[in-house]
């Protein structure tokens, strides 16, 4: 029984990160009908920003008081979010805006070009091997009836949950969030209502990038490493989450992300860790076969 809960916790933790990245993908896709292949690389940039900031700051790692540690963590998070937000803005202006609204593959290829640049840029600057990201949050393992949870794991889930709540608030309760939903559904009509669609486009890509950056930071700290190709597999799975969930409801993507994380953890724990990566695709095949528009429906493409 312990094993079950242990895997459940592990699964929720990684699933929440899948969810955050998938939400970013989904946001860009549903609002602008663009598949942003550079999104996983922005996630990777977030992790590297954490690496740079922490090593430059010569953070002692362990032995920090809790409040200082949290402060440092927040600083790193904010810096990463700023950097990735700016990257998102530039990406939108230079790559997404000229190519959106055309053939669906064009922004796909353009952003894949960007992802190649980012991956190789990271290799050039930091080398092809993973770099060690020193931990910031004092390591502490909580044991609750046999289930082990580390402080970093808690931080990861907490960050993810807060981000998702913030996104939900933005989309459903703010003026621009409302405009974003309108643009996602009918961009022409939204424009005729006075919505500057280009501005919404920028906001959307920036927000998605900021989310990816934050996820990168937490994952980098969790595994104490950042690597140029860390975005690839993670991004692919997040992409699958988006496809499986359909892009109509934010909550759907969140749920599927968590589900994927949990199922993967269960498969790893009970069956075999080799099959872990196959779970995502099995899920994709299974769902798309019966419900091509995703579990919870999507806008017409």
């Amino acid at each position, binding site marked *: 029984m312990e094993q079950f809960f242990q895997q459940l916790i592990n699964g929720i933790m990684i699933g929440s990160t899948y969810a955050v990245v998938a939400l970013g993908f989904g946001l860009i896709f549903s609002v602008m009908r663009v598949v942003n292949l550079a999104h996983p690389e922005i996630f990777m940039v977030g992790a590297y920003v954490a690496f740079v900031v922490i090593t430059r700051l010569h953070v002692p790692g362990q032995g920090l008081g809790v409040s200082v540690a949290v402060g440092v963590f927040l600083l790193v998070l904010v810096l990463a979010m700023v950097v990735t937000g700016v990257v998102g803005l530039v990406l939108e202006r230079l790559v997404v805006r000229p190519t959106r609204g055309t053939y669906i593959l064009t922004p796909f290829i353009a952003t894949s070009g960007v992802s190649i640049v980012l991956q190789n840029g990271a290799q050039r600057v930091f080398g092809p091997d993973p770099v060690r990201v020193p931990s910031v949050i004092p390591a502490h393992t909580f044991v609750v009836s046999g289930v082990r949870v580390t402080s970093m794991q808690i931080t990861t889930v907490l960050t993810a949950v807060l981000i998702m709540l913030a996104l939900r608030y933005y989309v459903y309760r703010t003026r621009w969030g409302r*405009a974003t939903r309108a643009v996602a*559904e*009918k961009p*022409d*009509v939204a*424009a*005729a*209502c*006075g919505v*500057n669609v280009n501005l919404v486009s920028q906001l959307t890509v920036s927000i998605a990038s900021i989310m990816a950056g934050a996820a990168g930071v937490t994952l980098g700290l969790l595994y104490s490493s950042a690597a140029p190709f860390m975005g690839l597999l993670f991004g692919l799975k997040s992409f699958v989450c988006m496809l499986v969930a359909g892009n109509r409801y934010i909550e759907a993507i969140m749920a599927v992300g968590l589900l994927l994380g949990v199922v993967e953890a269960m498969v790893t724990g009970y069956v075999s860790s080799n099959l872990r990566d196959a779970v995502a695709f099995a899920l994709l095949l299974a769902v798309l076969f019966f419900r091509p528009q995703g579990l919870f429906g999507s806008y017409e493409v």
Partner: protein
Amino acid sequence: MNALLQVKGLEVTYGPVRAVKGIDLEVPKGEIRAILGANGAGKSSIIRAIMGLVKSRRGTLTLADRELQRLPPHMVNQLGIAWVPEGRQIFSTLTVHENLLMGAFGQRHAQEVRARQEQIMELFPILKARQAQLGGSLSGGEQQMLAIGRALMSNPVLLLMDEPSLGLAPRVVQYLFDLTREIRARGISILMAEQNARQALRVADYAYLLEVGEIRDSGPARDMEASERVRQVYLGG
């Protein structure tokens, strides 16, 4: 210039095809003008071109001496033109209330927006009743009312209506066209593209007849009603 909206030499092309081949029209302040014509004659293209939604267009468009042709749709809206699209096109994933708020997106003053929303809900009591419902759950007629209400939320000087009668029951159509008179009474000019010539000529002051992208005839509504061509082709003889 007297007229509120002036269109000169408007051409709209979709790829190799010219949908609108150089037309002139105008809408003076306080009038309802109709563009009549069969399906595919190019009426919608004209409306969309005025709104700034068409990529390839030529000609000049002015609203009270401000040039429109280089403006993106959201700026056209902010200048005072509101659009009631063909087929309603309300935001089905937003509530009725949110749809109306979207109409007023370009407007800053929250007080005014609230006041206007009250007005509109008085005009359309059914919208008040269904405030919290998703737009997609409304009937065709209700959606049309929502679309018009949404357009009115931006306090426009000119309302563009694209085929308002499409897909609606006759009684609802009657009601809607009576409504346009109400709207005119409040000082809002209307330019409508409409296939249903009978209803359109009933409320319009002036009408243009569009065929295959060109204006074949135009004149005060009374005269158009009496014209042979219109009678035969559009009013059933």
